[in-house]
């Protein structure tokens, strides 16, 4: 049917039943397109399904002018809402497309093709794009167009208004049969793509290596055991997660490899077996996100097993002038680390185990980079697959492109965990407790003051090294009323944590944390 014809010859409105069928046809076409897209992505073994590439593109682009609209609409902007938003939007658009296409089929074809083109362009502009990545979007769109055209009720009756007896039920029957067929196609494609995709819980494939150099038991007294205080070791399940991955990469450890290249004498290309044939170490290291505000919780401490980074760099032979290591994750994330820091003898490592388990998928299975003393965005690459020796002049990594500083050592910080803010505590002896951290410099003192009074020295818990946070406590005599406690730490260089307030951007938050609560009379 030509659209022009429909426009000029249709005094009769499209029947409601046809509009409904059109909407259903559109939705099924979209589902078929997505399912075929997923299947093609699984067959070619690329994380390039239409939703993933479009979602990833939006995360990276994050146009400011859309932000308020996002909150207006969703009230949140986490990754689930993104997927839901893309999926829901696509389905609504598809339903409308389907309705419009009951009259103007060309709109349906062009519309679905256009959505496919959006996916294809997104696929090609991903950081790890290959030309083949357009296939899921292109073939998905083609399948969607086929589904739409075959399911849509024939528009002849609409145009002429002639509806012979029995035509309606024949139309409905045909509609139901084709709809059911394409739902089956979508289900089959989805099932097949699931089978072809490695399971996300691939953790069992990599055994935790027995470290050649174990960390040994934790010293007695790392945990003061005060109720409400943050535990010394953070369980994997509650370890903070900050990354840009919309979909957690699934990595098959059998095909995983680590490439060290760029300004090196000899490029290294290691399988997991080859990596782990080198000496391994076990260390307790505290990891912290630069986004952590004063008093914030984007920090955690774990026991890690891995291969020392310096050994690998020495093996590859770092050339003079290569002052930056750009590491890449399997999904194209880039992180830049100073070569001098990685080589200075600290326990920088390619970690493969966390608290006695293989790295959980959200924490970078099968391998991630760790450099004690640096914020995560310049050191803690998850799903690591590549390290390129280059210079800071030559390349800006992901967050540096977004204005965060190139070199970001951890800022000395301390936090009061208990008493809780705005809580009530009974008058008398109150245990004030928390954590302080200055990884790789260590914490040598923590002081607390009440209501602007004199600073009092807190007791420090023991620590296995200067690369972890440190618990502290202070027995404080509380009198009834509102009170405000402040805390500050001193690092291993003797420097007292600065009082000056700074936001996390661009190099980490600073300032003394304070908390206000009420002491009630006994």
């Amino acid at each position, binding site marked *: 049917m030509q659209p022009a014809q429909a426009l000029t010859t249709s005094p009769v409105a499209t029947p409601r039943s046809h509009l409904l069928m059109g909407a259903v046809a559109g939705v099924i076409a979209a589902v078929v397109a997505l399912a075929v897209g997923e299947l093609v992505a699984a067959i070619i073994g690329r994380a390039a399904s239409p939703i993933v590439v479009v979602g990833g593109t*939006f*995360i990276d682009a*994050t*146009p*400011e*002018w*859309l*932000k308020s609209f*996002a*909150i*207006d*609409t*969703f*009230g*949140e*902007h*986490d*990754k689930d809402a*993104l997927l839901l*938003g*893309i999926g*829901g*939007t696509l389905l*609504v*658009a598809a339903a*409308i497309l389907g309705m*419009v296409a009951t009259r103007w089929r060309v*709109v349906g074809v062009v519309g679905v093709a256009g959505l496919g083109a959006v996916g294809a362009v997104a696929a090609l502009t991903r950081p790890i794009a290959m030309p083949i990545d357009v296939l899921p979007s292109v073939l998905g769109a083609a399948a969607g167009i086929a589904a739409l055209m075959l399911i849509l009720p024939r528009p002849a009756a609409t145009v002429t208004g002639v509806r012979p007896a029995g035509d309606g039920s024949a139309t409905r029957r045909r509609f139901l049969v084709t709809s059911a067929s394409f739902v089956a196609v979508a289900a089959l494609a989805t099932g097949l793509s699931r089978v072809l995709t490695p399971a996300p819980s691939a953790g069992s494939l990599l055994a935790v290596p027995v470290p050649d150099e174990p960390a040994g038991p934790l010293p007695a007294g790392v945990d003061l055991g005060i109720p409400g205080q943050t535990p010394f070791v953070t369980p994997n399940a509650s370890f903070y997660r*900050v*990354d*840009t991955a919309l979909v957690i990469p699934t990595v098959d450890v059998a095909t995983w490899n680590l490439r060290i290249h760029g300004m090196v004498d000899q490029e290294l290309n290691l399988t997991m077996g080859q990596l782990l044939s080198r000496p391994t170490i076990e260390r307790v290291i505290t990891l912290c*996100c630069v*986004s*952590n*505000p*004063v*008093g*914030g919780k*984007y920090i955690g401490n774990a026991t890690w097993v891995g291969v020392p980074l310096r050994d690998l760099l020495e093996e590859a032979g770092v050339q003079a002038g290569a002052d930056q290591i750009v590491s890449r994750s399997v999904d194209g994330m880039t992180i830049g680390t100073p070569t001098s820091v990685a080589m200075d003898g600290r326990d920088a490592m390619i970690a493969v185990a966390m608290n006695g388990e293989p790295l959980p998928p959200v924490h970078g299975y099968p391998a991630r980079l760790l450099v004690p003393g640096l914020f*995560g965005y310049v050191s803690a690459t998850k799903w690591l697959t590549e390290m390129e020796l280059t210079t800071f002049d030559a390349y800006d990594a992901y*967050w540096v492109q977004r204005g965060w500083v190139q070199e970001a050592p951890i800022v000395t910080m301390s936090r009061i965990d208990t008493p*809780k*803010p*705005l809580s*009530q505590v009974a008058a008398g002896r109150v245990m004030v407790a928390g954590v302080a951290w200055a990884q790789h410099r260590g914490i040598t003192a923590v002081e607390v003051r009440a*209501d602007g009074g004199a600073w009092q020295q807190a007791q420090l818990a023991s620590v296995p090294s200067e690369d972890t946070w440190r618990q502290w406590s202070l027995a404080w005599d509380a009198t*009834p*009323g*509102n009170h*405000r406690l402040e805390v500050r730490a001193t690092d291993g260089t003797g420097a007292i944590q600065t009082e000056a307030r700074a*936001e996390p*951007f661009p190099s980490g938050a600073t300032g003394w*944390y*304070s*908390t*206000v*609560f*009420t002491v*009630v*009379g006994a």
Partner: protein
Amino acid sequence: MSRRHMFLGVIAAGSLLMGAAGAAAQSPAASMVAGPMASPFGAACSAVPADGAGSFAGMAAVPVATAASANPLLSTLVTAVTAAGLGDTLNTTQDITVFAPTNDAFTALDPATLAAALADPKGLLTTVLTYHVVAGRIAPEALVGPHTTLQGGDLTVAQEADGSYTINGTSHIICGNVQTANATVYIIDGVLLPPMAPASPGAMASPAASTAP
């Protein structure tokens, strides 16, 4: 509107939605934020900047005191919170509701009351400010009725015939259900004053209450 135009409009709106949902990460942790799925409401919401740290998206990514400091409507409140030393406290208390008076609300306050509060940051000012904070995130559906504040006194929200909300019969919500990382915020046009006698034992102590149970 022709269907063709409607179609184009829907596609355009759909693209917006897709983009909007992806407003995820301008900082390494911005993608961590989660909150109830609902929209802000109220006439004054249009005064909130469309983008930047003071926009709804900007505020959702950071804790409540930080969010307020990016909003020019709330600068007097931020001054008061800073004077009381409550910034970190409000930022690190999990899941609270904050009734946030605008600059105009403070201007309308009796100058003697404001001066008295600012002269006593740890006492009266803290008492007044914590009277604006309720434990838990109150959704719009659960607004109507009495709420016990962290100061200890109750405040009461009522809904008027026109659908608007009043608090303690005097102040109005002018932009409500604004999400921040740790708090739901209702921006109001009046400063709320607590009943000076403590409403319950063990509340945030007011000066008069500091010797009470």
